[in-house]
């Protein structure tokens, strides 16, 4: 028995594991990880106990020297965006919605989804490099967590959260997570984007935890058994800036497929970027379908329903009914037959839905927000928090599918403005603690620096969310009659003649009569020719 065999047996006896080196030809390349160029477990700097997130970031920045500076320039960091078209100052920091309403005064809870550490109030230092959270996007273990209430900090040891609740949140091992960093994934992006609006699938309807490992039926691109796209496959990032925007979306991509190396500054996250402007090459009636692609967004036909992965999305939220207590005088939850919460004393009434058909509208990519300070009028019926621009005539619009979220939320009837209530927190002014709107709104508006009359009423609101995920297999795309019929999906779309929907009875009678007469003429002429030919 030669030395190598003895050595191998000795090694096995020492407990070394599985693959047999002797089977690897000597000229074979050394075994390496193929999904990364750096095995972070080998870095001594990461082989230590970390007591906080910023301690990890400091180590990351010793090699990735430009990363924090790049992050500082992004919407993910600033939560602020100046819309160059409307000049409105937007971003999560500034806009309101009809879900959890607003961020100011609720920072420690909302900023659990910030790519930073420690944003607990309006004094957060946006120039701090060590406050950038690398792990939230680059964790591959799936174990990194930033629970609401900790201002974006991860728990490094077991702790009771919320304080006094008796619920224990387990501490996480930052060293282990830091040693396993890698590319972003559906799990990392989804840790926030699947849970927008305060829970799984609540806000978007086309994004929820079922997309972490979806089937082809749910999304042909993200299909975990197939193409397995990550979010970054479409939302291509450059210098840590992730492409795609809710504030200035690309409603109509007129430029066709985006070639590698192209220096065009355009959104890479559109269907057209890969599929081009005439995507139906192999389909039956491809010419007719490609004509549709001039006016109808791909998503309209290819996303027949949202919330198809078994996670319900909220479809309405009525804050005006919040505050009711149970028979025991304590806040209560009411659930439907499927165990989903449809009433919460802290939040009011909800409706939810799975397999929800979208609504449809012309959309040209322009979005205008009703911001804090803008006048609202209850007598107008519904206040649209975000108004989507678009019409059949402007040449820039396509027919888009939308999730329209309807709600009723507090507003100031004297000043005629929406308000920013202080909801989350363990202090006396937080609505979820004391159930008093006046105190909560006064406290929240103070942080927002906006006037509050002291009076509270509720106003109906709407938000529209263009739908773009959960693309179904082509076999499940909408059939013609879904739209080309009376009371079809596009019944509310104006400015375009839609065969099957827009027939005028007199015009139809005249047209069919003309066709019939033409047919009779053809047959009559043919018959006469035959008759004449036989006589000869």
């Amino acid at each position: 028995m030669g030395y190598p065999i003895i050595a191998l047996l000795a090694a096995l006896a020492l407990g070394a594991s599985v693959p047999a080196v002797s089977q690897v030809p000597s000229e074979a390349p050394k075994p390496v990880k193929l999904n990364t160029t750096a095995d972070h477990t080998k870095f001594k700097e990461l082989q230590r106990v970390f007591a906080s997130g910023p301690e990890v970031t400091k180590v990351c920045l010793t090699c990735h020297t430009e990363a924090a500076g790049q992050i500082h320039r992004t919407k993910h960091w600033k939560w602020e965006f100046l819309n160059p078209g409307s000049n409105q100052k937007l971003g999560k920091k500034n806009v309101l919605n009809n879900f959890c309403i607003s961020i100011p005064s609720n920072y420690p809870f909302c900023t659990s989804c910030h790519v930073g550490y420690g944003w607990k109030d309006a004094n957060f230092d946006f120039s701090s490099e060590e406050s950038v959270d690398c792990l939230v996007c680059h964790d591959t273990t799936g174990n990194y967590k930033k629970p609401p209430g900790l201002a974006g900090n991860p728990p490094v040891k077991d702790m009771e959260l919320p304080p006094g609740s008796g619920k224990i949140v387990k501490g996480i091992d930052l060293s282990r997570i830091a040693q396993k960093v890698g590319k972003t994934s559906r799990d990392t992006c989804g840790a926030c984007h699947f849970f927008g609006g305060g829970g799984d699938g609540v806000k978007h309807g086309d994004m929820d935890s079922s997309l972490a490992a979806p089937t082809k039926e749910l999304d042909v691109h993200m299909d975990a058994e197939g193409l397995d796209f990550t979010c970054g496959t479409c939302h291509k990032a450059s210098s840590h800036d992730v492409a795609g925007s809710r504030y200035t979306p690309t409603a109509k991509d007129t430029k066709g497929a985006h070639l590698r190396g192209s220096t065009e500054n355009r959104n890479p996250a559109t269907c057209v970027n890969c599929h081009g402007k005439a995507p139906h090459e192999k389909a039956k009636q491809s010419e007719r379908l490609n004509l549709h692609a001039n006016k109808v967004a791909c998503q309209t036909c290819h996303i027949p329903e949202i919330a198809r992965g078994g996670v319900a999305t909220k479809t309405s939220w009525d804050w005006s009914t919040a505050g009711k207590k149970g028979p025991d005088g304590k806040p209560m939850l009411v659930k439907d037959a499927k165990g989903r919460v449809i009433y919460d004393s802290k939040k009011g009434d909800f409706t939810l839905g799975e397999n929800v058909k979208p609504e449809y509208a012309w959309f040209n990519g322009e979005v205008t927000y009703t911001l804090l300070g803008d006048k609202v009028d209850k007598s107008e019926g519904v206040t649209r928090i975000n108004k989507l621009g678009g019409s059949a005539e402007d040449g820039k619009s396509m027919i888009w599918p939308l999730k329209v979220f309807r709600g009723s939320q507090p507003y100031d009837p004297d000043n005629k403005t929406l308000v920013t209530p202080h909801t989350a927190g363990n202090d006396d002014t937080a609505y979820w603690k004391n159930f008093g709107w006046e105190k909560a709104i006064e406290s929240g508006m103070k942080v927002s620096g906006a006037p509050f009359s002291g009076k509270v009423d509720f106003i109906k609101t709407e938000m529209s969310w263009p739908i773009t995920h959960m693309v179904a297999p082509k076999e499940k795309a909408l059939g013609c009659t879904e739209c080309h019929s009376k009371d079809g999906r596009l019944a509310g779309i104006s400015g375009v003649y839609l065969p099957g929907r827009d027939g005028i009875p007199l015009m139809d009678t005249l047209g069919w009569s003309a066709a019939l007469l033409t047919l009779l003429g053809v047959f009559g002429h043919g018959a006469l020719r035959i008759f004449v030919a036989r006589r000869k």
Partner: protein
Amino acid sequence: MKSARILLAAAIAATSLSALAYDADWKRGRVYYRSVCTSCHVANPVGSINPSAKTMGDWATYMKADKHAKGKEKVSQYISKTYRDKIKSANKAAEKFADVPDQELSDDIAAFLKKGAKDGDSPASCS
């Protein structure tokens, strides 16, 4: 001198083998567990079994015991390349992971079950 050389060779071999230790991919385990294990369990009277239905210890014991269907079969049989090859025409996950070594896939599933266990870092369901 001779024994020193043997020890040195043994140390080098041990180091090489350690470097090759497999780093389990819980995400691949998740896909296989849901698409192969669960899809079959749902079709059979057993029903689906959430990873969060058991503790990390339970799952470790289960994987180590390698017993399926109350000991009549082996768990490893359903992870094997042979099994994947048999079902791959009707199961996309089996097709996608057709060439993954048995032990690696087994480790992937074990990692997912550990993570998704009742007392794991992220208790998980089958869907």
